[in-house]
């Protein structure tokens, strides 16, 4: 049995120790946020926060977690209501198929917790590990901007280079 802490709750799961966290989250804990996109750490659809850092859960054997704290999309609520990022994505209608969105929200969460006033370039570079195939990039950026403002910060524009 392996113990892990997800969204503030401890769980015990009966899985092979080399099972990547992604499959445990989805199949054993019935959490839909993190998704299988590639299983190779290349697309970010499985992004979760481990001790506040964004990582690909498809690369993380669950036995290696130890006491580290895992947070998923489902853990980004505030008092039972969607947190600023999920709310902003909803308000901006920032999704087409939406498959990449959970990963985007979690990765953006890590940025805004660490840097409440990033520049536009910093946001883009920070989100670079996450792929979107539908081309929802512009709305995702608007949603992050909106969430940053809701969280008391904001996204700074940097003047274009001549």
């Amino acid at each position: 049995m392996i113990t892990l802490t997800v969204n503030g709750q401890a769980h015990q799961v009966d899985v092979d120790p080399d099972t990547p966290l992604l499959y445990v989250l989805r199949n054993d804990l019935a959490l839909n946020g993190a998704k299988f996109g590639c299983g190779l750490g290349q697309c970010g659809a499985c992004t979760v926060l481990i001790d506040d850092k964004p990582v690909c859960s498809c690369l993380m054997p669950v036995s290696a977690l130890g006491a580290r704290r895992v947070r998923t999309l489902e853990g980004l609520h505030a008092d039972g209501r969607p947190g600023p990022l999920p709310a902003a994505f909803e308000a901006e209608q920032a999704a087409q198929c939406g498959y990449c969105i959970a990963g985007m929200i979690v990765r953006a969460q890590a940025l805004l917790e660490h840097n409440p006033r990033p520049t536009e370039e910093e946001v883009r570079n920070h989100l670079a590990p996450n792929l979107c195939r539908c081309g929802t990039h512009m709305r995702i950026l608007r949603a992050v901007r909106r969430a940053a403002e809701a969280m008391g910060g904001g996204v700074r524009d940097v003047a274009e280079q001549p």
Partner: protein
Amino acid sequence: MSAPRNPLGRRAFVANALVVTFALSRGALAQDTARKLPPSLAKAPQLDSWIRVGADGRITVFTGKAELGQGIRTALTQIAAHELPVPPAQIDLITADTGRTPDEGVTAGSHSMQDSGTAILNAAANVRALLTDAAAWRFAIAADQIEMRDGAAHTLDGRSVGYGELASALSLQVPARPDMPRRQGGKAVIGQKLPRLDIPAKVTGGPAYVQDMRLPSMLHARVVRGPSDGTKLKPVDIAVVEKMPGVVKVVREGAFLAVVADQEWRAIKALHRLQAAGWERATPPLAASDLRETIRQLPAEEMPIFDYPGPPAPADARTIRARYSRPHLMHASIGPSCAVAQWADDGLTVWTHSQGVYPLRKSLADLLKLEPDKIRCIHVEGSGCYGHNGADDVAADAALAARAVPGKPVRLQWMREQEHGWEPLGSAMVVELAAELDGDRIAAWRHEVWSNTHSTRPSTAGGLLAGREMDPPFAAPKPRPIPMPEGGGARNGNPIYALPNARGVFHFVEQMPVRVSALRGLGAQMNVFAIESFMDELALAAEADPVAFRLAWLKDERAREVVQRATERFGWSKRGAGGDGSGMGFGFARYKNLASYCAVAMEVRVDQDTGEIHVPRVVAAVDSGEAVAPDGIRNQIEGGIVQSLSWTTREAVGFDRTHRTSFDWSAYPILRFPAAPGRVEVEVIDRPRQPFLGAGEAAQGPAAAALGNAVAHAVGVRLRDMPLSPERVRAALRPVPAAPSQAAG
């Protein structure tokens, strides 16, 4: 004459009389009706195929189309909510399900709003008329004294009755009547920004995809194949894998191989163990690493696309020629295809994100030797598919795996490299254009396009990968071209410009070096890129502004408006001479010359050292007829622009002699955030009461062309072969040295 004694009284008599009247006239009306009804309704004319009203007033609306992430769940709900009318929250929309919904073929070709939207609009108008009549009868007043509002019938003097109660005295098992008047006045739902119904679950972790399904006792499976289309696994000893912990079954039928396990990771480990056996090429080697030349050279059937009359060009006209091309492209869905299948005594259920549940059912029936009515295919959303990807194949894989463990639901998902390796690609294409320029007038125009088929969507077992792995294998169906006016490789090959003496020929290449099928836009992306690039090249030769040059040939008023709105908003008049690395370009098309109109203006900056293209600004205008969900249209156009930028600036599926080398995101990179445009603005032109036109594929061609034209403006060199990758841009910009290189000394 007094009414016969009837225990139910006068009401029932009249209601029965109505039903009888309908029944009697049905036969006579039916043929007439079928001719005048929109196509989807004509195939399923009964109202209750589309709309049912529950006793509690909840409305169930059925559509044969599927939500692909393009927002039609919400848009169709809006249509029904608007026309009935009921609050949208009172509607449950059931999407493609062979057990419950009409057969609307495949959700593709930007047809959903046109076909299903129009059918639901009409059906809802029919239902409202019946409910109005029922209310009029009940209140004993004229129908025009009734206001239908918020799911209830209201009289002027304040009486009301809900639809639920009204409907219980009514049968909707009646055929739709064509040309029912639309609702007039009252609060609009069509044209409003109704928040998408599927987004809340997607941003909070609610179940939203077939990949999220969890059924009791569900097992996990993986299919085992070589790395890509054209390869096969070497013979493998399955005994070792059968003994791996958690492995329930290794399914082997002919060349089909799958493993079923109690946990997903165990299925993956077993998969890797089986794949360690190695693979080999199953068909003759591929000729090259980029197959567009191969396709251009293969035997082809000549099919005329269009022929516009006009006098021959004068002898002193200038001839201008250009050749454009694109490589094979990948759908590259973010979530690899997935299906859940379960065999029970009474048949097989498959939960699938296939775009066509009915054709899939037919193919599965063929494969599994079952009667179609023993198979139910239920659409559950997958990740964006952008056409025919692995969805149908994985459904068959899941069905075969599940057959080995009857009673248990089996979830089978493709791995990333399986999706990359086996999905049918968008065909490589070559377009050769020639025109005669008489001063600044186009006096002749020739368009020739070479392509494989743009659809191998399965309707028989031979169209499924698993079908071809059976022993004996089902024959792959002969590829066919899609006829015009829709077209496949010829799609949008017929220019919307009113050109004289213009002819187009489609060279349909039947032989497919690699597996191909429908990719969003089909041939339109290539044809529009070619035509719009060529118009720019002609404009340059004629020393005319590219937009003004086009407008001279554009007669369609709605087309002209879209062009004008986009270019004005963009500030096209400020376009300078270019050539210093910054440029502005424009592209326009009406998708299929039947669907949405879309114009795209784009600003680019080309880094002449690295060949990277930056896109600071894009402005687009779109006319989709009556805009049911304007923000949804905007979303689709923005997305189509960005997706097209990815295709056009960096994508090309790679091959070597034996297999696809584009096996994952590292080998087939797509656009990431740092390369996304600086700003994208989309203006949606609403045309109230005009037919709904699909917007999902309208932007790809114009955006690709706008990019190519902007790059040409920026660097003074015309690139005609997609992708306009950094390598190709650098190569195009590299000056030819006057003397052999002395650089290395």
